[in-house]
């Protein structure tokens, strides 16, 4: 199969972008990941991942929503692109398939 590969952190960020609907920007993504996984990453890592995802065409972005909070600066909001959705579906289905094949936990030995 010849397609863009996707890393673990990238996948996590991509999922978060999707789950936050049209509210996803770097700081919120960071908070969400921290809350859900307890992982310690800093915002620069998120930015770097988002730039990579953007370059691969998995996300779209637009600048909007100037607030007072950030010195009047706009935020870059990310949304999942169709390609992004496709790759997420694909990885998920592969995982699900494999997961199904795990032997069921049995307690016969006890």
């Amino acid at each position, binding site marked *: 199969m010849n397609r863009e590969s996707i890393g673990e952190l990238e996948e996590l960020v991509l999922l978060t972008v999707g789950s936050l609907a049209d509210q996803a*920007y770097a700081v919120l993504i960071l908070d969400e990941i921290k809350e859900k996984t307890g992982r310690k990453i800093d915002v620069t890592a998120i930015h770097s991942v988002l730039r990579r995802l953007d370059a691969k065409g998995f996300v779209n972005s637009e600048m909007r929503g100037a607030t*007072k909070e950030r010195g009047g600066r706009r935020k870059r909001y990310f949304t999942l692109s169709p390609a992004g959705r496709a790759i997420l579906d694909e990885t998920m289905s592969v995982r699900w398939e494999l997961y199904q094949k795990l032997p069921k936990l049995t307690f016969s030995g006890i």
Partner: protein
Amino acid sequence: MDQEKESYNPPEWAITFLYWFCKPELLEDLLGDLLEIFDRQCEASGKRQADIQFVWLVFRSFRWSALKNSKKLNPMLNTGINFKVAGRVLWRDKFNTALNTLGLSIGIICFVLMGLYVLQELRFDHFHSKKDRIYRAYLLEDYGGDRTFFNSVTPIRFEAFFEEHFPEIDQVVQYAPRNFPVRMSEQDWVDESVAIMSPEFFEVFDFELIDGDIEHPFNDRYNLIISQQYAEKYFRETNPIGRTLDLKLNNDIVPLTISALFKDCPATSSFQFDLAISNSLNDILYGKRARNNWFSVGPETYVLVNENASIATVSEKTQDVVMSYLGEEVKRDEYNIGFQPLTDIHLNPEIPAGIAPVSNPTYVYVLGLIGIVVLLVAGINYTTLSIGKSMKRTVEVGMRKVLGAQRSSLVGLYLSESLIISLISTAIGAVLAILLIPTFNRLTGVSLIYVFAWWHLIGFLLLAVVIGAFAGIYPAFILTNTKTMSVLQQSSTAGGKHWVRQGLVTFQFLVSVLLISSTLIMNRQISYLMEKDLGYNYEAVISIPLFGESEKGGFFNDYEAAKDNGELLWQKLEKHPEFSNLTITSHAFGSEGWAHLAFEDKNGDFRWFRMLGVDPYFAKAFDLTMVQGRNFEEGNTSDERQGILINETAADYFGLSEPIGKQWPGKEFGEHRIIGVVKDFHFSSLHQQIEPLIITQNIKPIFDGVSDVGFNDSPIPKILLKYTGSNLIEAQKMIEADWNATFPNRNMSFSFIEENIKRQYENEARLHKLISTATIIAILIASIGLLGLTVLVVNSREKEIGIRKIIGASPFQIFGLLARAFSWQLGLGIALSIPLTIWLMKEWLDGFAFRTSIGIDMFVASIIISAGIAFLVISFHAWKASRVNPVKNLRVE
């Protein structure tokens, strides 16, 4: 920006930095996000934390994907490519690359070794965490005229005195090493140096206690603490804690309990001790008078000043407090107490040495300077070679420019070349330098210790970058400065300003000649010191220190007891035919600090002199010449009781033109009479003038008349004898056998006077060796540079040489052609180096009371050496160039 109340801004410079490197299209939202996080952090944990986090995040944002594609950053972004290209260029010209790397590596070896040595000297005593608050007290008694006593060892009562009167001082500790016999086994006693210290010593200084009662090692006054090394020596593998060790304290055998074990003192410590006892034993160790006296000194006193106080306030107060005690005995400002920072002790020669010796700071700076100069010479090699080479590369630069290369990116490219060379050389140089440390120590007699730390890697990296940048920056600019058109028109005017390159070469010659002539001059002075006729015959003379422990105690009784012991040993030793010229004296040659005595003469002037206690055989044993009067007669009891000999200096100093039969010009001396004057001889090192000296068999009458006494060398008698055999080990065995037969329970030590005398010039000899090493290295580097330059000249003039040869030039003429290129630089270098050398060496020689002169011959020699090496290098190439078939050169087209 927003000016809300209570809102903080992160550091401005970090934002500027972000603006500088970040792609503009990413900037707004990235900065926005960072600010949002910053505000949040501000509320959560305060501005400071938030600032730190913000700066950290800005630096973390410095990622490839965020970097601006600007012209400013272009050279940096092209690093990878630059290094690749630079690597190829260097590989193509292997000869030059090898020369450059070799020269720089050698320079770096020298620099690293000298640098480590200087660093070690400068960091001496710096490992104590409270070092900035620790001071050593000194005592300067100044009663006018010659009557000053400057000591950094102090009265014992200073400890209580400081504690009582100065609330600014947190702790006062004293430290005094003394020799005590320690029981090694049932019958065996060994003299060991034992530190007597205040119980709070370890609260002030950071020596590490590792076992036993770490908190209170001197809980009991009969506690003893021991170093790891000595624990091994006395207790082998077993745990020393709780064991006892017997010490002889003033003839009483005292069992001491070992309460703690400490790590051996680091080599960079002024304190060096292996055994220590508490100074609460002072009442056993010292008499009551010594403990309460203001005028007799013993231990060093260190104070730890309170964090909120300064030593200056303490110093100011001392005079008043002193006057409240001593107001009746001394006038104001005669008895001065001062303080010196702990970290100043090792390298400050202005304050007299206390217990540890003081290094000479000038030597340290001179060595540091030499390290830098040698590195400079090595860097210049690269610079001159690159400038030389640049002529060949102008076309390359021109082409690159035509194809649109920015100047900055070209500079980046050429800088990468020098960076590669300097990185490789630094790696080679640093590794070799560290491997060479043992050799370096052995060659030069210093004791350099290297302990690796990770930050050294960063230091070396930094060194490499600095060298690379400095050596490469000038050639890089010269190279890229060329006008594109003129290059492509082949009107070769490039190559940089000639005078810079020639100036650099001149500097190299200057340094080489300077180092060569300095080495030669130092060599001469040191051999002068070693070979100077000292006025006595010290060849193969052995000195055996005696011991004296009389029943009654006291100095005179101990002195006599030691003399009697000497007689016992003498009877055995004199049976060996190999031993001759036996004599018993209070001091031996080759040690500074013979008994220093002072008295007030009949005019009320304060006068110092030295004294030596001897037996009647002394003058004969050392071939001393009598100028007037006569020597002691053997068996003459009147001589033994009251005869004294003086030296010529003493006769002059005290104005005794007809001294025979006269007395020493003081009032209170016991019965004595001058019977002879000996010719001056150098009993102390040649740094010092000869001082007035009394030689006497009976020291008592002289001691009776003096008011001040100082010893830097133990006056307890020694047996001196001359060994005429040839096997030193045999001699040692004979002495040992006789000693053990006479004093079975005592350890023996002995030394050769010749070696002791040599040791007085150890510092000079060491400096000389260090500079000789540096000289050889500098010459090596300079010749490598010259070699490279000659090759370049030959290459650039290939055709000219070829044509000349066809016309019939001899190899000699070709040599002349090449030599002319360097001869005036060599000449100028030599001319400039001469006054510089004379000035430097005058400074150095001023430290000696007896010195050789700086002769022209040494400069002639160094000129011959440096010019010789230069011409050797050049003629090698001339020979090579003249052997090549000229057709080859001319067919290059």
